[in-house]
């Protein structure tokens, strides 16, 4: 390519204290081009992005070596500046102006006590010297550009009045308000639902076509990479493992790590489908379960009711995994809690191993819960930091069966063996383990009372793809060995496909479709299922021009 790159990073190294987070990173991005920086958590991708913004110093890091040269779009411009050598004061006129950034968390990245309009206008007033009224007019245009309906009204709203997807659009509008040469997007769609993610990615792509900026896109999701990037740089432990064009990476990854990463990524339609289990009496049977939430209802205030779970029924057979898929807020976590009776359902019944579970008295229910265990999403918050692992994972057995002393220690070692953790883990504490290992501990704890059913609520959502793949494989092995049934809840349909015998699709509190995995994914009946499937980014590049339907579902 003859044209000079807009952003050129050479031999960049970044350190936090004595720990080197990024080593010898180099890449170029040209106008209109998107480079994806890919890696698992701790690979240094966010540190690299923050270094380019020179915000890394704020996070306690520093640039120890290298150049970050920022050029300009179009011909006939000044020589590029080396951002690594600028002072904070010299960086200020560039940030938000020639180089912008959007962040992962749209829920917390906007100032909660300032109106949207004010936050947008601030950038324009600072960098383009517009008056307040002119800046607000320009802000309205910027909101219109990111296809936010009714922009004039949005200007006067506060961030909490907007959904996650809309907030991320506001962030994009803010970042692009001054038409930057470089846009850095740090996991901008990770916190969003797939359908919202698809819309935001499409928007970014079309804005890039319009404005011609260079985009540095940071993600851990290979599906998103295939969707948006031209070239990819794979990072691991701060080092570049491979840099390639997207097509080359997907068809023939050169480095072993990239190959592992590709293999671990769940691809919709690529996993071997688990055949349905033979018919048997259901081990967990849910009939007409309902749960409403009420808000307000004080003096002079009307009560509002949310139907979180509406008339939900399903069966799970012994040794079967039912995948429950749906987007955030669809009621899947409420459903799992209502089945567990962590919250009391308003109506309906739950049968556990043929015995009624709803309607049991508190002590009887607690006894019956030995057959129904749960694994939660956050492996960091769901393990008591002050208990040794051997006590932690055998606590349910202690509570249910009074298992104690030598037998309890023996059970702990047995459980650690089942989840493929070393025996010496028994004497350690939860914080000494990684996220994936902690989730294994949670599974071990659930197994300690030999339950018939385990509810896994987004159990692998907080984990890196390769870790998640190992954890789901472990669950599958345990299922084959012990015949335990799983209710596996996830927002990620590719993970659901990998683990489930049957799938239930949840939408606005109701199960809209249920059936064997193959049937639901190959010939979805409900329009929402079809929309969900169409929105999933597919980690392969050949059919790049997939048609999507983004029409709202009734």
């Amino acid at each position, binding site marked *: 390519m003859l044209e000079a790159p807009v952003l050129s990073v050479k031999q960049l190294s970044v350190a936090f204290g004595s720990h080197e987070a990024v080593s010898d990173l180099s890449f170029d991005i040209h106008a209109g081009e998107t480079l994806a920086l890919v890696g698992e958590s701790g690979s240094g991708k966010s540190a690299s992005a923050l270094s380019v913004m020179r915000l890394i110093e704020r996070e306690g890091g520093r640039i120890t070596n290298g150049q970050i040269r920022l050029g300009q779009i179009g011909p006939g411009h000044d020589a590029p500046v080396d951002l690594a050598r600028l002072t904070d004061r010299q960086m200020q006129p560039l*940030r938000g102006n020639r180089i912008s950034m959007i*962040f992962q968390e749209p829920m917390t990245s906007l100032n909660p006590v300032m109106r949207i309009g004010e936050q947008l206008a601030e950038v324009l007033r600072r960098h383009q010297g517009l008056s307040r009224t002119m800046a607000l007019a320009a802000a309205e245009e910027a909101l219109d550009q990111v296809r936010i309906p009714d922009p004039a009204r949005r200007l006067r709203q506060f961030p909490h009045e907007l959904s996650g997807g809309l907030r991320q659009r506001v962030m994009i509008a*803010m970042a692009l308000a001054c038409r930057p040469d470089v846009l850095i997007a740090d996991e901008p769609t990770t916190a969003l639902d797939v359908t919202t993610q698809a819309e935001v990615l499409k928007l970014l792509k079309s804005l890039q076509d319009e404005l011609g900026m260079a985009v540095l896109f940071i993600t851990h999701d290979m599906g998103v990479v295939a969707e948006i990037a031209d070239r990819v740089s794979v990072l691991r432990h701060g080092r570049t493992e491979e840099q390639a064009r997207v097509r080359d990476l997907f068809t023939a990854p050169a480095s072993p790590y990239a190959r592992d990463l590709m293999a671990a990524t769940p691809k919709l339609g690529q996993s071997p489908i688990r055949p349905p289990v033979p018919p048997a009496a259901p081990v967990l049977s849910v009939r007409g379960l309902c749960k409403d939430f009420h808000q307000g209802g004080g003096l002079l205030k009307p009560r509002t009711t949310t139907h979180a779970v509406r008339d939900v029924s399903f069966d799970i057979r012994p040794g079967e995994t039912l995948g429950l898929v749906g987007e955030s807020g669809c009621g899947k976590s409420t459903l799992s809690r209502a089945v567990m009776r962590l919250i009391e359902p308003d109506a309906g019944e739950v049968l556990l191993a043929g015995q009624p579970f709803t309607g049991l008295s508190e002590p009887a229910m607690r006894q019956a819960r030995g057959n129904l265990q749960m694994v939660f999403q956050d492996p960091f918050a769901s393990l008591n930091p002050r208990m040794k692992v051997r006590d932690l994972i055998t606590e349910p057995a202690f509570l249910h069966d009074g298992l104690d002393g030598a037998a309890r220690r023996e059970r702990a070692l047995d459980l650690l063996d089942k989840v493929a953790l070393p025996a010496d883990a028994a004497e350690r504490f939860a914080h000494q383990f990684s996220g994936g290992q902690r989730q294994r501990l949670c599974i071990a704890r659930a197994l300690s009372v030999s339950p018939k059913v385990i509810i896994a609520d987004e159990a692998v959502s907080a984990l890196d793809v390769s870790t998640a793949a190992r954890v789901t494989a472990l669950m599958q092995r345990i299922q084959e060995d012990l015949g335990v049934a799983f209710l596996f809840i996830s927002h990620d349909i590719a993970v659901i496909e990998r683990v489930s015998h049957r799938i239930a699709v949840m939408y606005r509190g109701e199960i809209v479709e249920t059936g064997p995995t193959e049937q639901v994914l190959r010939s979805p009946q409900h329009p929402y299922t079809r929309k969900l499937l169409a929105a999933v980014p597919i980690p392969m590049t050949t059919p790049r021009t997939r048609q999507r339907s983004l029409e709202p579902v009734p």
Partner: protein
Amino acid sequence: MIAYILRTLIKMCVTLFVIITLVFFATRLSGSPMETFLGEGLTAEDRELMIAYFGLDQSIWQQYLGYLRGIVEGNYGLSFLERRPVADIVAERVGPSLQLLASSVLLTVAVAIPLGVLAALYRESWVGSAIMALAFVGYAVPNFVIATFMVLVFAFMWNLLPVVGNGSWAHFIMPTIAMSGVLIAALTRFTRNAMLDVLGQDFMRTARAKGLPETVVILKHGLRNAGVTVLSVLGLQIAGLAAAGNVVVESIFSWPGIGELLVQSAITRDYPVLQFGVIAVSLAVVVINALTDIAYAVADPRIRLAKA
């Protein structure tokens, strides 16, 4: 909004009713006030007349009901000592007390918020440690110690400042400092903690990524968010000051405010004055609390008054 005001008013009335009841019976527990007022030389008939004049011959329940009726009708009773309506006596004291309260709050905000912000920004340098050490000392020393110390040094030793009354602006200096001491210490610590919370928030990084200078990031985006939490505490602190802080300080400096009046009327067992003084102070506390709630909701758009 209207619903909120209505609810606040109802709550206020209930609170006041409870306080009036408590104060009424608590004062009666310490015996008949007449023993203090009526001299030795009074004849038995005069004595009866006086007791009847103040309605003290009725049963305690009749007195209580009579007192409640009086409050509803706007008749708050006569001072035993001065023989004039307690409302007039208390009204004279409201102005000076409010002035002292206002000057103390202004001083507190002007000193504590900048100090708290500085302590948060320089938490790892000696500046932050020095501010927090100072705040700790300020927290530990009671206001009457500060007051006595100041009187000793600035009035008696150097003869720089007046001690008694509220005649001029110079009279405000020592009482204001004595009143705000603990408050400044508390609010400095609180501002620092609120600011530290905010400094780590994602939107602060966004503000920097927009290219805003650090001062704008801290003062506009940071302080505005920290201010929301600080405000709620400030309201409580002011209410506390209005309720109790002024009693000690006003007494020491003979400040003609409500606090001093309460002490005097308690000593002389002038119950009607004491009762009405306490009711006035309670009313002030309740109003300040309500104003704090409203200010909080205005400052933080996520709080809706309807839900408060």
